[in-house]
């Protein structure tokens, strides 16, 4: 059952409109809240007047820093999250919440919000990394990695290298823009709070909200049944969730909040802009001798998150002499956060572009160059072996499918029949295989069905389906009779859907819970003189289709239904936890790997770039559902194309406001931008990474894809674009 291309178990709910997202909860007497956000990037609220708003018919409350209940706005997790919850007059970023209007309807609240009069004592914001007021700092860490690293002696090796690449690459500020805007429905029952929240992790959310309101965690329930995409933006706790709870408390009714699309460019985070200085020293055959990767990442003035772009350079190739550094640059912006493959996505653009430049500088084929510098062990962890690494096969299978050997080595060598320039590009991909502790509960009922739960989130990854399959296999019950449920803090605690870790983390717990119930059923049979399995050994048994049988004599056995009925119980359950401490480093380095190949057609007159073909090959351990895995990879590849050609938050340097804060002017790919994507699933067995051999696949698809496109554009045009996105004018 694991690996089968089962159709999504929640597919029917999603295509009929029955799937209910957080804002679609409609508790009785629900009220609507709309957030008023700041129109300056830094300064103070000089005056705020909600009188007119409050006087509108249907308005229930107007909250400002003058009258909002006091809460602990610095208590959210993870890390040093500092929310802005109407506690003071300070404005730290554009579109910061400054007031909240609660009303009988969305329309009344929206109109009244426009009538809240705010005046500001604005200060002059620093709005770019090189603005006079921007401050560079040494971060304590780079997104849970050491900020700096060094091995060998870079300076002398680089100075002595016969071939040198020395370039700076830039990736822009990017906004997640899940199709479902952030939304929360909050309801109090006495001192107990229930939140229906668009979240990537209900337990993280519960912890933050409990801390902000000074409640015990047991007094907060967070429910997330369906999420319309997250990509990192719904991982951390954001202001609107706490504001919904605050408003609901105040008006004594349930309250719903949804962010406007423009406010999706506000305080919940984004991928920070990076400036990455790459220096590569190599011998004339292309062998790497030295590599330095120095990153400057956009940061806010009040929290520490930065993009860990250089981390990928520490482990992807065999290079003896290396330094990497990360610095944050603080200016007057909201705090960035995780966005699909934080670090690896932006870092791979720099590293894999620089590798392409080295290929042209040495005359070595880009793929051959990567094979020449292949490493079988992790140079960042003192040569520790990888739990598995099938990158060679990703290169080989991807290249064969793409026809990489047909690539002419010269640039600007080929044109289509209608005169477009043709270019081929490739890049490597990798993402760490993470895991954290998770638990699950499995129950087998006397009708032979099973119900399994774990408080995970399905943000589009296919968690409902994947964990149904894992549970079915462990239980020995057909998938049709297994129901898996998730997304509720009343369930066993699960890892959040982020960092490509949820499937590996939760699957191992679900598996253990399934095995535990199955063994309980077997033990009941063994102990029962009336059972054909009486006195038999567990090791001699098989479990399939809801029946236990002896391996050697399959006719001897009985069903779970028979065992439960004879025992006179309606069900048997087991709870299991798969523990994992991320800080304890095991004997292996754990990563998934892949390779991208892209063909672009570029109009020489207009500079427009069209993707013609894409082939991407990935090896990520055991694949739970090949159909959904392909979809996840495809989505990642689309994100890579988007990063290469489309996305860029463009800030107004005078005001600090992102000027393209909507889906018309903030470009993301539409259907016509994306050709057929060919995904190659490279088989891989990993006996070490975790008991089930699963590596996460949510993020690796994007890593390197931006560089594959940029490299193809160079091959087509001989123009090296080192600052994304590759807009037409950069090719003219």
């Amino acid at each position, binding site marked *: 059952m694991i690996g089968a291309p089962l159709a999504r178990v929640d597919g029917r709910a999603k*295509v009929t*409109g029955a799937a209910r997202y957080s804002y679609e909860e409609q508790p009785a007497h629900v009220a609507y809240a709309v957030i008023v956000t700041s129109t300056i990037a830094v300064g103070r609220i000089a005056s705020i007047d909600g009188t007119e708003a409050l006087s509108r018919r249907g308005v229930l409350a107007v909250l400002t820093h003058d009258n909002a209940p006091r809460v602990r706005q610095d208590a959210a997790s993870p890390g040093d999250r500092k929310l802005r919850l109407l506690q003071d007059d300070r404005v730290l970023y554009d579109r910061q919440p400054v007031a909240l209007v609660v009303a009988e309807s*969305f329309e009344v609240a929206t109109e009244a919000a426009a009538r809240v009069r705010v005046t500001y004592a604005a200060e002059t914001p620093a709005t770019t990394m090189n603005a006079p007021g921007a401050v560079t700092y040494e971060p304590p860490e780079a997104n849970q990695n050491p900020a700096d690293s060094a091995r060998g002696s870079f300076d002398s090796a680089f100075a002595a290298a016969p071939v040198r690449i020395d370039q700076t690459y830039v990736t822009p500020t990017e906004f997640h823009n899940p199709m479902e805007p952030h939304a929360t429905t909050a309801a109090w029952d006495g001192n107990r709070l229930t939140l229906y929240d668009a979240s990537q992790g209900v337990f993280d959310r519960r912890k933050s909200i409990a801390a902000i309101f000074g409640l015990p965690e047991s007094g907060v329930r967070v429910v997330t049944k369906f999420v319309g995409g997250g990509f990192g933006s719904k991982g951390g706790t954001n202001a609107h969730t706490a504001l919904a709870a605050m408003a609901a408390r105040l008006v004594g009714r349930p309250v719903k909040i949804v962010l406007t699309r423009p406010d999706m460019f506000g305080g919940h985070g984004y991928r920070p802009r990076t400036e990455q200085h790459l220096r590569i020293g190599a011998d004339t055959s292309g062998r790497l001798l030295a590599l330095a990767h120095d990153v400057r990442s956009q940061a806010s003035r009040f929290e520490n998150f930065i993009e860990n772009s250089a981390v990928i350079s520490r482990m992807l190739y065999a290079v003896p002499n290396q330094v990497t550094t990360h610095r944050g640059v603080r200016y007057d912006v909201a705090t960035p956060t995780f966005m699909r493959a934080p670090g690896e996505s932006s870092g791979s653009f720099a590293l894999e572009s620089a590798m392409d430049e080295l290929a042209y500088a040495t005359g070595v084929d880009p793929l051959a160059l990567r094979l020449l510098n292949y490493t079988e062990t992790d140079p960042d962890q003192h040569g520790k072996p990888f739990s598995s690494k099938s990158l060679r096969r990703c290169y080989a299978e991807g290249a064969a499918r793409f026809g990489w050997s047909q690539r002419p080595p010269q640039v600007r060598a080929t044109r289509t029949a209608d005169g477009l320039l043709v270019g081929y590009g490739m890049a490597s991909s990798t993402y760490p295989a993470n895991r954290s502790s998770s638990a699950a509960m499995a129950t087998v009922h006397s009708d032979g069905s099973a119900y399994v739960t774990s408080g995970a989130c399905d943000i589009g990854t296919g968690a409902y389906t994947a964990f149904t399959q894992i549970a079915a296999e462990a239980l020995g019950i057909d998938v049709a009779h297994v129901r898996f449920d998730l997304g509720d803090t009343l369930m066993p605690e699960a890892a959040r859907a982020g960092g490509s870790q949820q499937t590996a983390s939760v699957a191992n717990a679900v598996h253990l819970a399934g095995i535990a119930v199955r063994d309980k059923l077997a033990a009941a049979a063994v102990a029962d003189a009336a059972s054909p399995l009486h006195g038999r050994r567990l090791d001699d048994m098989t479990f399939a289709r809801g029946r236990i049988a002896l391996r050697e004599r399959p006719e001897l056995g009985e069903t779970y239904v028979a065992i439960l009925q004879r025992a006179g119980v309606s069900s048997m359950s087991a709870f299991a936890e798969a523990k994992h401490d991320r800080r304890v480093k095991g004997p292996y380095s754990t990563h998934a790997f892949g390779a991208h190949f892209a063909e672009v057609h570029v109009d020489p007159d207009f500079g427009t770039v069209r993707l013609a073909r894409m082939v991407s090959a990935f090896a990520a351990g055991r694949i739970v559902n090949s159909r959904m895995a392909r*979809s*996840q990879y495809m989505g990642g590849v689309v994100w890579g194309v988007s990063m290469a050609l489309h996305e860029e938050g463009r800030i107004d340097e005078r005001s600090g406001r992102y000027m393209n804060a909507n889906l018309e002017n903030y470009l993301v790919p539409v*259907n016509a931008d994306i050709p*057929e994507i060919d995904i190659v699933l490279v088989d891989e067995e990993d006996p070490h990474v975790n008991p089930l051999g699963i590596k996460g696949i949510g993020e690796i698809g994007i890593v390197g894809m931006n560089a594959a496109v940029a490299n193809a554009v160079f091959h087509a045009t001989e123009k090296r674009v080192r600052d994304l996105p590759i807009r037409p004018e950069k090719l003219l």
Partner: protein
Amino acid sequence: MDDRTFSRRRFLIGTALPAAALGMGLSAPAAVEAQTAPALMGPEPVDVMLQVNGRAYPLKVEPRVTLLDALRERLGLTGSKKGCDQGQCGACTVLVDGRRVNACLTLAVATEGKQVTTVEGLARGGRLHPVQQAFIDNDAFQCGYCTPGQICSAVGLIAEGRAGSDAQIRESMSGNICRCGAYTNIVRAVNAAARA
């Protein structure tokens, strides 16, 4: 006041109009009705009868309420999604008299007398519409939030005869953003449904 007569004239004003204009519209419905000139409506709630998925829904709404918010917040039909509320993403796509429209840009009162079809209205007696089935079969979604809009768009464009080739499907489906990036599978699904 006879709100039914009043509401049939399908002409709206914004709340910014002077109170005198509002007063005139509200106080003299019969007089305005007698002329063919468009009449005024609102800002008070008016009675409308919406026809959604073959069912009649009597509703009292302010004229400024969009079809999308009427469906989602008043009728409990949350299948149509709000992605931007600005006509930029297609998540709210529904069919009005068979034509694809953005429900966030359509006022509920403006659809009176028209047949609205949402994603909830496509299946027949528990049997999925071929486009819905094709979306499942081709895994044409991930988070599912753009999906109702994609499906309504696909139903519309197949009916319009615009699903002749992959290129045509890609072009005509480009008003529906899928941030999960399911485009390759969406094209496959629309193709499969169009040829079914």
